[in-house]
Structure formats: C-alpha cells, structure tokens
C-alpha cells in the first residue's frame, strides 16, 4: 500500500461479524487519516442523543497515510468516539508499536460497533480476524493482560483496557504496548461498555512510498533536522517532558493544590532534574523514533515507564505532593488500572479541596501521597468515594453542589498550565474541541519557550491568530498521525513533501494547514450538533475571577472574553462561534451530509438518525 490501503475493517460486536469496506478516497485525501478521518466518520455514524456508553456509540481506530512508512515517529494512531466524560467528539492518539502493526494488517481504519454478549477480545493476524472469549482475562489489569496475550513489540501488539475501562470509569484509558495510552476523555469506558477487553494485531504488509527517491531524500533531510535540534537530540532524550516542571513553576504557571496557587514549593523535588539524579534508569523510544523521550524509572517497588510532565504534575503539584517515588508508583498503578493520569490527578485534587473545605467527608488532604494508591484503586473499582470520583471531577463536584472546584472545560480536566499565567493557553483550553487540552495547539512554544519566537504570555491581545494556527497545525499532526515532538524540528513543508512521496498525490504545506482547519471546523460542527454553544467556550470560574495571589503571575486572571471575540473572527465564525456558510464552503464542508449551507444564512443541521435538529447559537 502507498499511504492508504483503502480498506476499512468494520466489526459488529453484537452480531459477532465483520466485513471489509472500501475507504472513500476523496474523504481520505480531504481528512488525511487519524483524527481527521475519525471525525469525518464519526459525523456519519454517531449523532446527537446517542449515549456514549451505549452500543450505538462506536470506536474508530485510525492510522494515517504515513503510519508504518518508516518516517521518524510514524508509529502513532488514534481512536475516535463520542466521549462519555464530555459528550463531545473525542479523539486520542498514542505511540508505541500497535498503530504500526495494525497498519501492517492491511487496513487504514477499524470501526467497532455494538456490544458483545460476553467479554471478548479480537485478534487480527495474516490469517484474518478472530473473535475470542475474554472471560478469563476480564478483571485482569493492563500489564497482566498485555503479557497474557503475548506482547512482543515488533511482532505482536496488544491494545487493551484495565479494570477502570471494564467498570466504565468516565476517564478510563485504552492502553497499548503495555504503557502507551489513548488517555483522555474516557475511550476505555466506551471499550468496556462494549465488553471488548483487547485487540491483538500481527501484520506483514508494508506501507511503501510511490516515489522512493523523493522518500529517501526527505527521510535524510528530516533525519538531519531531528539530529540538529537540541530539543529533539538532547533535551528530550536526556530529561523527558518532566523537565518542564521547573520551567513552568519558574514563570508562576504551575497549578498547585487544585489551581489555588500557581507556584509549588515542592516543584524542584518532582522535577526532571531531580528524577535524573535519583530514580531515572534509562529512556525508551517508540517504533521508528530517534528522539526517545520516554523515561524509565526505578523505585524500591519496581521499575517501569514514566513519568511524563503531565503525570508528575497531576499527582504532584496538583495534589500538593512532593514525593517523587510516590508519583512514579502512582503512574504505574494508573497505567495498570487503565486511567488517564491527568483526569485522575485533577479529580483527586478536587476531592482533596472539597475535603479540606469540609464539603466532603473524607480523609483525603493535599500532600497525602500515601492515600494516592487507595484513591486510584477505589476509582478504578468504583469503591466507596471512588464510585463518585469515577464520574469525573465535574459530575463529582456537581453532586456536592461544588461545581466551581472542578477544574474542567466541557467536562475535561485541565492539564499542567495555569492559564492565568499564560493567556493564550487559556484561550486554547476554552476552545479545544475535546475539552481543556494542551495537545491541541500547545501555546507553551510561543508563550514560554520562544519557539519559534517569544510572545508575551501575560497579554491577552493578539493571541487569537496564533492559537488558531497552532490548533490547525496540531490537527495536521494528529491526522497524519505523527508525534508532536518531531514537529519541534520538522515543519509542514517537510511533512507535505514526505506525504507526496509516500502516497503519490501532490500536497503542499498549505494543503496540510487547510486540512487541519477543515478537521477543526468539522469537530466544531459535531459539538454544535450535540448542543454545545459559545457558553461552553469558557474556563473554570476560579481562573476567570480569582487573581493569582503570589508569584510572577500575581494579580492575573484570564481575560477570556476579548480573546474569544478575536478568535471567532479570525476563524471566520459568527459572533456566537458558529462557522459561517462562507468559511464552510471554503473548506469543502458545505457538502457534509445532514448539513444545509445556504449563502448568507447560518448553516442548519438537518435531522440526523431521526433525532431533532440541534443548532448552535442557543437554539436547541
């Protein structure tokens, strides 16, 4: 195959059947793969009113045209579904080897529909697809399941859920290759609701370039760039992402104790520098990646992957914990149970604040590292307070009439940046289509690291264009599917030429950015159809109204409203954040099924699957 095999594996768990369908190649060219293609397929398959944990929801595993091609970081893949945590369109992507191997089975996409009558796992090999009884595996943790199914990195790869997914924890993850994660938004709960325990893949096909000369030239050029950048060649391999802890603390944007403060006195104790001096024993790379950013750490309880910056923050500063070994072990436990570390940490942090304020009857307190393992297990198995926390911090806090202590946007917990100290990041969190997310256009580069150039993190003016362009760019990477870290050294012009070489169709850097914008707008339409409006493009009240009390960002709140107005205008949306017919036409989205687009009129969304039309702008 060259880029796309053109084949979709469509699986019906209810009936225990599957078929191979053709991938619409126009759709593939427009949306590329990964996140983009997933969103486009979800638009057709799952409409408003569908319960994310019902058999009517689907899981769409997508590779991209560059997956398994051999380009640097061409191992990644994504899953798209409707999120049980947020109700928005959700995609999550992951590295390791599974995506590469799935592509080698000769499919671009796998759609999983329905619900199996009993615990099931799927196995795809050169002999075909088999349904297996997973009763003996149900209840096993992620690591045990992965080992039991014969994980062998380059040859046979296991993707599975742990107890959290089985128990439909709303932020349960899907794990692959042991400790890689399709983490955010609860795809694990969807998989658990389908009684699907695991998918094992073994393949033997290859994704080769149509133009091998151009491919080899581009591979050489991109390899040079990755080697030449100190970020990809030295900083990430040596320290991993956890090196961000001191960087973000230094500028006063490290959310501490559930975003009550933005500097943590224990930051250095849980930093990348300290990890390197104490618990780090090595690093690790995913398939075809020269960067090798994964950490391998050792405590007296064992050895394992991680922690990333986000995880170290979520179980660290967010919970007021400064014990690195406890954090490292919490990460392993969370991976083994199969949950998103960010949402887990922020939900626990929320519970800690509620308990300290006397709103919640619990012994949870900030700094209680010893209570982390119990909290994580109780969430995964829905025991005691864990049963409430398993619903995610928003529903949890709301059930105690304390919504304002849930640090979420659209129900997704905020990651490790206090936007009061990074205004552009605030706009990003408020407008990301899957809820508060830093991976959909991280403003860390421009606002902190001066990549490509430093902008003032404390001003709110003039951020809209840069945020929108970063969001489009992230959508491109998520659709090709490549790692954001290769983007630190390699730009769109290279991706475009690499794609041209592999699939034989000419792409320019601008075509890619246009595709990114297309994906962004489609996701926006999906959410509007679900009933989301400009009202949900917001931030927790604390960040809008409580000024930072101390540190370099003292006195700041997020000045969201003017940024949002500028943003809607830049995106070519109306004042209520609804894409205009003109913009949709420019992106080729005016011909989406079930969408009526008349010039000079707001787009309307027709009945979908028999459900009443839902339109943004406050009309339900």
């Amino acid at each position: 195959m060259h880029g796309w095999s053109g084949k979709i594996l469509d699986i019906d768990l209810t009936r225990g059947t599957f078929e191979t369908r053709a991938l619409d190649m126009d759709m593939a060219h427009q949306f590329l793969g990964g996140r983009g293609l997933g969103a486009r397929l979800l638009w057709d398959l799952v409409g408003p009113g569908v319960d994310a944990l019902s058999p009517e929801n689907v899981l769409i595993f997508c590779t991209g045209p560059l997956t398994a091609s051999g380009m640097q970081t061409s191992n990644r893949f994504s899953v798209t579904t409707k999120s049980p945590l947020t109700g928005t369109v959700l995609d999550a992507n992951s590295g390791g080897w599974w995506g590469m191997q799935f592509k080698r089975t000769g499919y671009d996409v796998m759609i999983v529909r329905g619900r199996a009558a009993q615990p099931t796992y799927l196995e795809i090999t050169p002999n075909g697809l088999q349904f297996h009884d997973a009763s003996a595996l149900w209840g096993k943790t992620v690591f045990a399941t992965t080992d039991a199914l014969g994980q062998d990195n380059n040859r046979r790869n296991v993707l599975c859920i742990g107890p959290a997914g089985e128990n439909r924890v709303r932020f349960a993850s899907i794990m692959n290759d042991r400790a890689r994660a399709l983490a955010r938004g609860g795809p694990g709960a969807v998989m658990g609701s389908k009684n699907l325990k695991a998918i094992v893949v073994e393949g033997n096909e290859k994704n080769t370039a149509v133009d091998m000369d151009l491919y080899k030239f581009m591979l050489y050029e991109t390899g040079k760039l990755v080697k030449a950048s100190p970020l990809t060649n030295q900083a990430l391999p040596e320290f991993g992402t956890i090196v961000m802890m001191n960087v973000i603390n230094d500028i006063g944007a490290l959310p501490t104790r559930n975003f009550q403060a933005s500097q943590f006195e224990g930051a250095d104790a849980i930093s990348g520098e300290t990890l390197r001096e104490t618990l780090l024993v090595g690093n690790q790379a995913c398939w075809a990646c020269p960067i090798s950013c994964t950490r391998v750490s050792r405590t007296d309880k064992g050895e394992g992957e991680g922690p990333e910056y986000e995880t170290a923050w979520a179980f660290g500063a967010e919970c007021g914990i400064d014990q690195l070994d406890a954090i490292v072990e919490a990460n392993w436990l969370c991976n083994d149970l199969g949950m998103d570390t960010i949402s887990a940490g922020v939900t626990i942090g929320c519970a800690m604040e509620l308990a300290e304020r006397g709103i919640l009857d619990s012994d949870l307190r900030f700094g209680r590292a010893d209570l982390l393992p119990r909290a994580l297990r109780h969430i995964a198995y829905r025991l005691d307070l864990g049963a409430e926390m398993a619903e995610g911090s928003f529903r949890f806090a709301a059930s105690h009439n304390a919504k304002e202590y849930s640090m979420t946007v659209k129900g997704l917990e905020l990651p490790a940046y206090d936007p009061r100290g990074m205004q552009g990041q605030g706009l990003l969190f408020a407008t990301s289509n899957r809820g508060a997310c830093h991976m959909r256009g991280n403003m860390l580069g421009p606002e902190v690291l001066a990549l490509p150039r430093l902008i003032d993190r404390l001003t709110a003016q003039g951020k809209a264009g840069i945020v929108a362009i970063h969001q489009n760019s992230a959508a491109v990477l998520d659709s090709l599917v490549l790692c954001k870290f290769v983007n630190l050294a390699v730009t769109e012009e290279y991706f475009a030429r690499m794609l041209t070489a592999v699939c034989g169709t000419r792409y320019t850097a601008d075509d890619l950015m246009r595709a990114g914008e297309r994906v962004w707008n489609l996701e926006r339409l999906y959410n509007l159809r679900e009933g989301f409006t400009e009202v949900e493009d917001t931030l927790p009240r604390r960040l809008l109204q409580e000024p930072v009390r101390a540190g370099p960002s003292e006195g700041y709140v997020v000045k969201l409203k003017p940024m949002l107005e500028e943003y809607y205008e830049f995106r070519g949306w109306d004042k209520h954040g609804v894409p205009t017919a003109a913009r949709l036409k420019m992106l080729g989205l005016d011909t989406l099924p079930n969408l009526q687009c008349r010039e000079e009129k707001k787009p309307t969304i027709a009945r979908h699957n028999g459900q009443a039309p839902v339109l943004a702008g406050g009309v339900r």
Partner: protein
Amino acid sequence: MIDQRLYEQFRDIGRDILLTGLTSSHGGNMSVRVGNHCIIKRRGAQLGRLKPEDFITTSIYENDSGVTRASTELIVHRMIYQKTSALAVIHSHPRTAIALSLTRDEIIPIDVEGSYLLHKIPVVAAEFASGSPQMAELVAETLREYKIIMLRGHGCFSVGQTLEEAFHWISCLEEVSDIILETHLLGEQHLEFRKHSEAYARW
C-alpha cells in the same frame, strides 16, 4: 497610526533590508496580516526610513483603505493572505537573485546554509510583472508551496509568521545567489560535497 511595537519591527527590518543592499531606496514593500486585514507600507515611502504614518490598513479581500493605488503590489499581498496562511509578506529586489532569475527557472543553493533553509527557489514569470491580477495569482499559488520565490527580472516575494522570518528568507536568498555567482566567476571546478545534492531540484 499603527501599534508602536509593530511599527518598530517594520522600521528596523526595512532599514536592514536597505542597508544590506536588498532593495533600492523606494523599492520593495512589506505587510503583516492582522485578523482579516493587512497593514502595508504605503506607495512612495522609503523602506529604509519608515515613519509611523507610512502605513495603510486594508481588508485582505478588497482595497477598502480609501487610498487608490495604496501600494504598488497591494493586490499581490492581499492574494497571498487569501490563499496561504502567511502572517507577513516582504517583497524586495535582491540584485544577484534577480540576475540569476533571468537565466534559469529555479535557483538551487550550492552552499550548506542555503540548501538547509531554502532547498530551492522557483522562478516564475509574468508578462506584466507588476501589480496585475495574473501575477498576483501566480505568486500566491507558488507561495503555497515555497517560503520564498523569484519573479523573473523583478524581485522576490517571501512569507513568514513574522516579518523577521520573511526577512530571514530574503537575506538567505541573496547570500545563496552571491555564492552561486562568485563560484561561477572563480571558474574553477565545483567540488560537490553534500549527500543527495542532486535531489534538491526535486524540493
């Protein structure tokens, strides 16, 4: 009157362009995109001596600045903003690059920095090489794929996220061009040392 910090960027880069010989006194122009408008140097202003009042603001979709012939190449800048995701555009007249554009269809760097940054600079030709819709269309289309291009016999157009980035490409292009010219003038055998060098033409 434009934002002071933005004016300083225009002023400093305009001065650098003049002083490094990348344009004549009144030639060239620069613009940035702000939302769906662009701010461009007005016709007749000297690139190397810009004052705060030397700028025009207009929609990228049409010239609504109220100034006819606001800038000679306004139509090109507007078309570039419509068709690409550029946030800054610079047009200047680097003389060696112009000389090379008269004798070839693409300028391919032979030096390390140039091949690393630019790989290849295409040369496009238009009959009315100044401010016509056809030329604007041609230039904008080509800039969807390349950061900097040559308009045969006229000058370069370069794009970037910032003015500084667009300036960087022009400065690099002229260095690339000077090296090609001087190597040629030396008249000695060219010792190619770069791996895959023949592939640069395919960029």
